[in-house]
């Protein structure tokens, strides 16, 4: 009976407290999410800079007090058909937008667009701010980059190197990972340790002899040094795929073996169909690596601009155009160079993220 006496008020208070807690939960959820969103905005601010700068022109970039958005200085076409630039001129009766007719250091002559009358103004016209139009993105910047950077050539070269290298990297890593995951080989653990150690090996140590070797067989000035080594299995990729293969049940392999399948058939018909997520991750890793690679193309393709890949071409372009007057062109070029990898990432991010996590955590 005592049980019946208490529940009523308690039940009520309990309901109220969960309600309150839920409201509090909602508010803090909103707070945390808003905080994270503003953090993300700050984090990606440089991208905003790049996108907006890539559609501006040099006048706006160099002008002080220019608006953030892409705009162009407004002009006024006078009765004689001549176009004059509009400036914000401080006059006795407030700031007026006037068209500059005769610029001068001490005195300048303006035309008042509303009356068509000439106005004399004392002061240096260079201290005045132009009148800016509303949003006017200059999309020809991309056309300019397309021409001057020879973007289609760089795209073709990079795709060729990246795709061929990806085929080699994936194919070889699948074979080697299968060997490590499924076969009893004497000394396998030692070999696997060597494999892991090669991940830490600094690339510089291999670079010079490799370069000398490739030069000796006449491969410098070709894509071969950027593609062929990837047909010999990268340690990182092997590690990732082996971890994945180890999670696959052995029963299917064994059943196939009993049915008389060869190891190669087991790999092709049993392992690979189950391992697509990891294989896609490895393919993406290599594709992004090749797209991003700089040192290799720099030393192996120097003096062969017709074979240059995106990063090398972009770097050379930036060395020419990075001055603040033409900075908008390098920003446009950088934007064009990152569109493809970022787009691929958005389409395939599940597989990619899983790959990063597997290779990093499951040690």
């Amino acid at each position, binding site marked *: 009976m005592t049980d019946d006496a208490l529940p009523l008020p308690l039940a009520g208070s309990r309901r109220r407290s969960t309600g309150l807690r839920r409201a509090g939960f909602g508010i803090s959820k909103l707070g945390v*999410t808003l905080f994270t969103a503003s953090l993300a905005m700050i984090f990606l601010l*440089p991208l905003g800079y790049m996108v907006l700068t890539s559609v501006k022109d040099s006048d706006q970039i160099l002008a002080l007090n220019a608006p953030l958005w892409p705009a162009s200085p407004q002009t006024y076409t006078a009765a004689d058909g001549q176009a004059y630039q509009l400036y914000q001129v401080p006059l006795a009766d407030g700031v007026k937008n006037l068209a500059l007719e005769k610029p001068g250091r001490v005195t300048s002559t303006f035309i008042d667009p509303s009356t068509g009358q000439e106005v004399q103004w004392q002061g240096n016209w260079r201290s005045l701010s132009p009148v800016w139009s509303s949003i006017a993105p200059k999309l020809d910047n991309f056309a300019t980059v397309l021409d001057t950077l020879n973007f289609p050539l760089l795209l073709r070269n990079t795709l060729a190197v990246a795709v061929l290298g990806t085929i080699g990297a994936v194919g*070889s890593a699948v074979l080697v990972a299968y060997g*490590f995951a499924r076969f009893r080989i004497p000394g396998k653990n030692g070999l696997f340790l060597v494999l892991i150690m090669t991940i830490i*090996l600094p690339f510089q140590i291999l670079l010079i002899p490799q*370069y000398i070797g490739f030069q000796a067989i006449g491969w410098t000035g070709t894509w071969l040094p950027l593609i062929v080594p990837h047909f*010999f*299995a990268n340690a990182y990729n092997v590690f990732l795929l082996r971890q994945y293969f180890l999670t696959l049940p052995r029963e299917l392999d064994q059943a196939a073996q009993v049915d008389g399948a060869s190891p190669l058939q087991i790999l092709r018909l049993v392992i690979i169909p189950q391992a697509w997520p990891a294989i896609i991750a490895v393919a993406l890793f290599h594709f992004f690596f090749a797209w991003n690679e700089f040192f290799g193309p720099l030393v192996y393709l120097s003096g062969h601009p017709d074979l240059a890949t995106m990063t090398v071409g*972009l770097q050379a372009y930036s060395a020419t155009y990075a001055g603040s007057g033409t900075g908008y062109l390098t920003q446009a070029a950088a934007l064009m160079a990152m569109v493809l990898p970022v787009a691929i990432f958005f389409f395939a991010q599940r597989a990619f993220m899983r790959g990063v*996590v597997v290779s990093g955590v499951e040690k």
Partner: protein
Amino acid sequence: MATVAEITDTSPSSISLARRETLWGLVFLSPWLVGLVVFTALPIFASLGLSFTNFNILRPGDIRFIGLDNYTRMWNELWSNGAVGQSIGVTARFALMSVPLMIGLALALALLLNQKLLAGKAVFRTLFFMPVLIPLVASTIVWQGFLNGSTGWLAQILRAVGLPAPDWFADPSWALPGLVFLGIWGIGNMMLIFLAGLQAVPTELYEAVKVDGGGAWARFRHVTLPMISPVLFYNILIGVIAVTQYFTQAYTLDPTGNGRPGGSTFFFNLNLYKEGWTYNNMGYASALAWVMMFIVVAAALVLFRTSARWVFYAGSER
């Protein structure tokens, strides 16, 4: 199911079966084994050998054994603040500035993205990760513009709130901090790895701290940190290795390879590139590479040795 008879069977046919398996396994490993010999083992020995010569790739016939001359030259340049001393100084300063900051921020970001209270986790994870996908040359260009002292946004924002704005990549004392910003932009990888580590922490442990009356700090200090210490260790190792391989960003900033402004971004690998490919001194460049190898191995050993004290492997007897 294998029977006892099968397991203990040592007849010739089962030995040859094991041998067949080994053979097949070696066939599958062969691409890597060949690559290990041709692209790793041979080059390691070759570069060690070359480091004791005056090998110049334009005059390969003049190669001569010069003993430790390359190494004594480096030793002298180290103490006279020559190219070696300067480049090691820049690289070490950058490592000390960027690695702790990147690790700390990546962990903080992962903790934030792991909050139960956060909506749209996947979207934020993607956004914070995205700069990693941007080719380094392109992201360097973006930051070069963003940090420009007159037209860049950061300078404009700082001036708008009345703070002095340095011209990062034109100012010798601000160029390295500028590159630290660029490095922080690429913490997405570390963040994801931390995030995976955080998600693997069993929630019962947090409940236990709660029962004991511990707050958020106690949960972090006594549960989160020990449980993610292997991941922390991995990230530190990767971060240190990345600094020893730093090249693309510095070269994009100054294609002459001098580490503009005023040598303040003259990283170790810029010096190596200059010696090897501008002056064609590949013998000396090999010696530089070996010194870097030595530094990396030493750093890795120190990390591994100290890790026994602070890295906690759950589920292992160690």
